[in-house]
């Protein structure tokens, strides 16, 4: 029986609209030191490799991992970088261990969105020969998707607003959250319109922060913690890039990614077997659409799902008990922070935002326009 890969410990900075006191590497140092403090391990003697995750455009630095080896003990040691969403870095760290090449891997990610203009960055993620010149960014493309999705299935703005009220409300129980708030549906619907139907409160705020996760091979994980969280399944998939090549009312690549993850984790009925979901919703409609993609309801039923109350904290399947991205988490860190929050839930360390008796959780990361690529991890509580 091959050894499983366990999450031993996680760390996050408090997410904030701006962190002007900290150099990007200081953010990574903060979360790295938190891991060291919690586990008592030595970076130099115990950690075999470091996987970092950052984005050159966001950092304004080619090879944005250049300052990382200094703060992760990686001088003359193994360190590499995945460029994309942090969930992928967790996947890559997991591969380091499953391959037998390393036993203990530290995965880190950072991003300070406040240091630049995100819309220019996002515009650079859109193909340069045709669409970039239209001035598209993630917001405008998301608005397009939201319009399509809502038109096809009759999803309402109120249903999207419910996601915001839920998540910003959940954030009040999360000490790392940037923007907890008690909102009403009217607050969301009446906030300033950015691109119909997306209002300011329907969109993820810009954020700065970092996250770290310590992964270990099963036998070592059990020595390092009595509450390991096993990565039972993982799947990732790309959709087409050209929005016209996609059915914007669907998220085919998320369906594929979650299918692979469920198969690997032997999950046949996600609605019954999963206890909570931490997902990367940059815009409110995305939580509805992606619950469909994750297989928790049929196509077009995302609105009914939120109406049913199932995804509230008191419901059967709490989604984003942490407050999600809508409460403020930077891109790049986003997917890794979902893994961190889901792991904390399974370790029973979530205090007021704890989902009772959580045993199996989904952590989700995404990148690209309208969620072009998705990474889904199925996590299982280990230990007692």
């Amino acid at each position, binding site marked *: 029986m*091959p050894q499983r890969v366990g999450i031993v410990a996680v760390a996050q900075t408090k997410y904030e609209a701006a962190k002007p006191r900290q150099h990007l590497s200081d953010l990574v140092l903060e979360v790295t030191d938190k891991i060291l403090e919690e586990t008592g391990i030595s970076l130099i003697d115990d950690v075999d490799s470091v996987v970092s995750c950052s984005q050159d455009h966001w950092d304004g630095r080619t090879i944005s991992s250049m300052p990382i080896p*200094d703060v992760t003990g990686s001088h003359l040691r193994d360190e590499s970088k995945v460029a994309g969403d942090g969930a992928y870095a967790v996947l890559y760290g997991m591969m380091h261990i499953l*391959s037998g090449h390393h036993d203990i891997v530290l995965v880190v990610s950072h991003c300070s969105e406040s240091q630049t203009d995100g819309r220019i960055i996002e515009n650079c993620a*859109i193909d340069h020969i045709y669409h970039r010149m239209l001035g598209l960014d993630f917001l405008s493309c998301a608005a397009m998707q939201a319009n399509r999705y809502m038109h096809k299935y009759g999803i309402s703005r109120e249903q999207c607003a419910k996601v915001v009220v839920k998540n910003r409300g959940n954030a009040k129980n999360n000490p790392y959250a940037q923007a907890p708030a008690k909102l009403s549906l009217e607050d969301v619907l009446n906030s300033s319109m950015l691109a119909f139907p997306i209002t300011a409160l329907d969109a993820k705020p810009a954020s700065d922060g970092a996250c770290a996760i310590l992964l270990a091979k099963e036998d070592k994980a059990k020595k390092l913690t009595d509450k390991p969280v096993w990565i039972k399944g993982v799947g990732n998939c790309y959709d087409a890039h050209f929005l016209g090549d996609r059915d914007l009312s669907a998220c085919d690549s998320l369906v594929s990614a979650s299918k692979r993850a469920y198969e690997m984790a032997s999950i046949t009925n996600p609605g019954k077997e999963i206890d909570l979901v931490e997902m990367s919703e940059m815009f409110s409609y995305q939580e509805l659409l992606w619950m469909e993609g994750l297989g928790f309801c049929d196509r077009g039923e995302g609105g009914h799902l939120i109406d049913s109350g199932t995804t509230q904290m008191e419901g059967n399947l709490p989604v984003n008990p942490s407050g999600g991205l809508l409460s403020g988490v930077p891109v790049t860190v986003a997917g890794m922070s979902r893994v961190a929050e889901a792991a904390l839930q399974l370790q029973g360390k979530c205090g007021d935002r704890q989902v009772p008796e959580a045993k199996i959780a989904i952590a989700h990361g995404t990148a690209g326009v309208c969620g072009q690529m998705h990474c889904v991890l199925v996590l299982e509580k280990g230990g007692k």
Partner: protein
Amino acid sequence: MPQRVAIVGIGQTRHTSRRPDVNDGELINEAVSAALADAQLTMKDIETVIIGNMEFFEGHHLNDAMLVDYTGARGKSGFKMNTGGTVGTMNVISGWYNVASGLFDTCLVIGWEKHDEAPTTSCITTITDPAIDRPYAVGALSGLAIISMNYMTRTGCKVEHAAMVRAQASENASRNPNAHVRDRLSVEDILKARMVVYPLNLYFLCPTSVGACATVLASEVKANKITKKPVWIKDHVTVHSDYSGALFTFPGETRETSHMVAGRKLFQRNHITKPIREIQVFEMYDPCAFVQMSWLEDFGICGEGEGWRLVEKGVTAREGEFPVCPSGGVLCTNAIGDSGTLRVAEAALQIRGDAGEHQVTRDVKTALASGYGGSYWTDLLLLSKTLD
């Protein structure tokens, strides 16, 4: 379950200064198509796609997602690596992890760069810290100039030795139809070239090239079904350095670079005590003529201060005892995201006996490929004809 991994398909484009006839995706697809054809596979057989390059070099963010139609990643797994100059070798290493982990049986690895689309040296300058040394970097050239000057100071190597290295590279590149700068150059030609960043003249430096390289990796079970000539990735080591890169050794300190650590680790793990005898070819990532000599020492191929002597004696020529970069190396072809992947591909071609006119004259069973970039970051891969 961990799986052993082989290279079962190799494809590369020709390399040149400009390719205005293709966009980035079309360029990549030339290499992808060639690799699939070489493996006699189709995109259906590929489970995951790993790609790497440096985003600012073409000005595109999240470009793995942008290029899915050309890389074949649409509908499949995959992600993007970015570690600077080492990304080419890191792509292969990442592909190795994808397959070795047991999560996938086949992986398409793509390295590429289209340097004609943005000012490369300016973009490389941004690898530096904006507050400390960004004003003082001139792309990669400044770092290489410093390393070169330091090598001459430490070992007595002369510019004539660097010229010999370049002349030899040009001889090799002239036999490689896919290399970029293929002119045969004499030592005199090279010494007369115009100065770019003293002490590095035009020929001591690599060119900026446009090109792509793709390799198909497969697990052991699949590899043996796909090809009669799998090239096994036996082992690999990645060693990075802190930001100061340990360029200088102060009194009381022992010189220790990432190449030195990588070489020691790889050879010890694989019971190689005399690499110059036990390995038949080295496709080294050599972005400037001086470092090829310095890094032969650092990797442990020869002793300290001996690198330029090896070149002087012809040991590193294609017909020599320890051929280095029979493809012409990075010195003759450098599309940065592509170069490391190309080192692995070229080393694999040597093992397969498929390097055509630039095939080394000895029988190749084991080969080395290296990547270099960042602030002295290293990848070192050991490739082998057989699994034992």
